């Protein structure tokens, strides 16, 4: 590929690439994202490569290793074009068959097709799968069209067109106006209007300004930023460049957590390639705009996802937040005006510029526009990354896309927004995914984590889990966060272990309120949300723990007891053999009994018993 020194170079390169690509019509797309790599997609790629070589197809079939497709539980995922044939759970042993039958002869291998868990039928293409059907994949759909390591792929699908438009025909004010009108709000959790942020940074005095991409995603179970950054790093870069041009920044940083090795690798590669071809550096595309990006790795602190802590970390200091009485858009990195946005926010920018603010604003609700990527996990049939238009109800996400509960259990609640969010009960499932509505309901959209829980989850235990997480991750600087979370956890532990009192519940509520109002940074200010929301919607569960000393879901070990129903027990002895604490005794073909003193409540016997004879009370 030639140097892209001017906008004409970019156009001719794009035309040339498209022309070249028309020659090969068969494309084999294999997901090489983190999720599929964990299901050994690298082995599949290797064997497919060998097969293609052996069958002399390596020149007529293009093999494209892409980023995440979103349906990670079905991985490794493979899509064959033309025809959009969707194969899932592909193993290296299937390689020969796929290449011979599907690629050479055009036959479809039934075995590898996706089976809809709701209806049980086999589905051939991605578009027909209910999981994908209900989504509005504006960002995620690009992932499968490109190899994240290839700048050519990105240019071929129209990459850097938005940048070209911005540099050549728009003034910074016009860009900011466009973003403002589009109604884009921060996707990292706060939901702050991006246009307003950019305006403040643009208006802030100072000739040296920075833009930062926050990819320090740390919520348990959430991985949208990882997926976007590792699947489409150039898109994020382009968004950052447009932002930098708008606010007047000359330097950008991508702060990505070190636990995302693939995202780090792809981001670094993207920056290197862009520099090599002149898309980063001095006088980009023949204009006077100069911009460069560095990739910084986070050291594994959750709190570094908070803007000021992130900046402290970038400055080489300990990753601790500082008071934000003066906003970071005025006094940010190295006390210079800084615009910090989340990966997803940056990734939305190019399409807003290209398609117009009206297009973006046509999706979503009054206060929340566009689409949002959610990490849908928990006790549902389909899990993975889903992208929906804002305003889709939680019910549509959980039951429509997610396919409802597994094992026929009733769904009890959904936890949105990670440790900063809250739990919403089933009767709130008609609420739309909307920044303001979910905030009103005591939860938040947050970065987009969505954990579905069924009746086997104890809400007190859920609150305890998140508090334990936050207690570990709090930087410990300010009193309400360090001591407040610690004391809340102490109270909740008391409750789950049967020592709780009703007065403690009031104290817990008051403490949660204090922590929310007085903590220094966003981590502390939202740390009490799991407690407050579970107290609001599931108070009866707390009370059952306190007054009846019982855990209704059978989770809290101190409050439950395992016993064997003598009528159901066949005396097969499986539980007796599986018990590692030797707590089960009984003769063959006679009902067994559990010695409550020896029982450690590990639950192994419960999962071993085939006759549902072991029960929890």
């Amino acid at each position, binding site marked *: 590929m030639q140097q892209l020194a001017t906008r004409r170079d970019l156009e001719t390169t794009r035309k040339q690439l498209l022309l070249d690509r028309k020659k090969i019509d068969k494309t084999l797309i294999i997901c090489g994202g983190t999720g599929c790599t964990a299901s050994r997609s690298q082995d599949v790629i290797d064997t497919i490569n060998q097969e293609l070589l052996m069958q002399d197809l390596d020149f007529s079939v293009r093999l494209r290793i892409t980023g995440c497709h979103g349906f990670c539980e079905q991985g490794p995922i493979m899509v064959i074009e033309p025809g959009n044939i969707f194969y899932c759970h592909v193993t290296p042993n299937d390689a020969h068959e796929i290449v011979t039958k599907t690629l050479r002869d055009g036959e479809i291998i039934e075995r590898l097709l996706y089976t809809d868990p709701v209806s049980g039928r086999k589905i051939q293409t991605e578009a027909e799968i209910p999981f994908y059907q209900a989504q509005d994949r504006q960002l995620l759909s690009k992932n499968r069209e490109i190899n994240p390591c290839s700048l050519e792929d990105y240019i071929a699908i129209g990459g850097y067109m938005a940048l070209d438009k911005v540099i050549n025909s728009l003034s910074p004010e016009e860009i900011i106006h466009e973003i403002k009108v589009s109604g884009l709000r921060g996707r990292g959790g706060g939901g702050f209007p991006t246009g307003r942020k950019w305006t403040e940074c643009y208006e802030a005095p100072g000739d040296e300004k920075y833009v930062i991409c926050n990819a320090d995603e740390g919520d348990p179970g959430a991985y949208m930023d990882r997926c976007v950054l590792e699947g489409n790093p150039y898109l994020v870069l382009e968004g950052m460049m447009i932002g930098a041009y708008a606010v007047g920044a000359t330097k950008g940083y991508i702060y990505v957590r070190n636990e995302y090795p693939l995202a780090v690798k792809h981001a670094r590669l993207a920056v290197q390639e862009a520099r090599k071809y002149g898309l980063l550096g001095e006088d980009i595309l023949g204009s006077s705009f100069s911009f460069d990006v560095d990739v910084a790795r986070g050291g594994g602190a959750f709190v570094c996802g908070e803007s000021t802590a992130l900046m402290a970390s970038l400055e080489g200091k300990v990753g601790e937040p500082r008071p934000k009485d003066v906003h970071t858009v005025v006094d940010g990195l190295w006390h210079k005006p800084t615009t910090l946005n989340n990966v997803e926010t940056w990734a939305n920018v190019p399409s807003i510029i290209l398609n117009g603010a009206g297009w973006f604003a046509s999706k979503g609700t009054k206060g929340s526009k566009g689409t949002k990527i959610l990490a849908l996990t928990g006790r549902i049939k389909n899990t993975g990354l889903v992208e929906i238009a804002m305003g889709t109800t939680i019910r549509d996400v959980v039951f429509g896309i997610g396919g409802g509960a597994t094992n026929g259990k009733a769904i009890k609640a959904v936890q949105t927004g990670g440790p900063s969010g809250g739990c919403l009960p089933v009767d709130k499932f008609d609420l739309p995914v909307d920044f303001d509505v979910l905030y009103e309901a005591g939860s938040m959209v947050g970065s987009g984590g969505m954990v579905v829980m069924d009746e086997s989850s104890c809400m007190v235990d859920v609150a305890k889990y998140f508090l334990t997480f936050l207690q570990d991750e709090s930087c410990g*600087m300010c009193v309400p966060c*360090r001591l407040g979370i610690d004391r809340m956890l*102490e109270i909740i532990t008391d409750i789950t272990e049967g020592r709780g009192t009703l007065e403690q519940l009031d104290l817990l509520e008051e403490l949660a309120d204090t922590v929310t109002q007085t903590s220094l940074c966003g981590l502390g200010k939202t740390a009490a949300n799991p407690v407050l929301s579970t107290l609001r919607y599931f108070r009866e569960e707390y009370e059952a723990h306190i007054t009846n000393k019982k855990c209704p879901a059978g989770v809290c070990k101190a409050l439950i007891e395992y016993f064997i129903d003598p009528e159901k027990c066949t005396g097969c002895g499986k539980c007796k053999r599986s018990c590692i604490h030797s707590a089960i005794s009984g003769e063959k073909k006679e009902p067994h009994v559990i010695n409550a003193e020896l029982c450690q409540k590990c639950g192994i016997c419960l999962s071993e018993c085939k006759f549902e004879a072991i029960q929890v009370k």
Partner: protein
Amino acid sequence: MLHYVTVNIDGADIHAPKGSSVLDVALEYGICIPHLCHVPGLSDIGACRLCIVEHITNGRSVVTTSCTLKVQEGMVIRTNTDRIKRLRHNIAELLVAEAPNSRAIQDIAVRCGVKKVRYPFRNSNCVLCGRCVRACAEIWHANAIGFVGRGKNRHVERPLNMREEFCKGCDYCIQLCPMTIPPCDGPMKPGEEYLCGKCESQLMITEDIPDSCAWCRLGEGFNCGRYAGLKAVR
């Protein structure tokens, strides 16, 4: 030349030098805002959160720490509203439950209206106010001590727990430490801690907002902001 702005703190219009913090201005003017991590002359980090005030902007009131809030023209600050009192009470309660063996903390707690501690006492030796760390770094540029660990494991430590040679032996960290003065009755045994604060509670009987708090007498020892202010006036 000093520029002045007018701020309204608790109803009083105060002419304050631009760039100073709300806490400094209030203390100098005689409005005592309880505080722990603030030391005159050192940078403010807003760690103890005791000096919270309500900052009223555009009809909305925001709770923020006065030590990190810089005065601006036309600012409206309320330091002693019911909401602030309640929050401050809860923070002081957390602190005194953590470290009952400090007279300074005991007095702060009672001053903030803590009558009963609802958490089990813990008897820590440090409340992580960071006075020592900042004094060491900012006055002497010695950096002989610093914070190590995060969350529950955060503590003050020498570099790598071994490099003692950075310490210049100035003892300033000890002078500033709120943990150095035990309650009048002597150190409490683990398991027998109680809320003391006798000195302060006597003052509380006669006046709602006491003119001089126990901190003022203790203040010299650990450099209470108000003590420094009063000394300047005298």
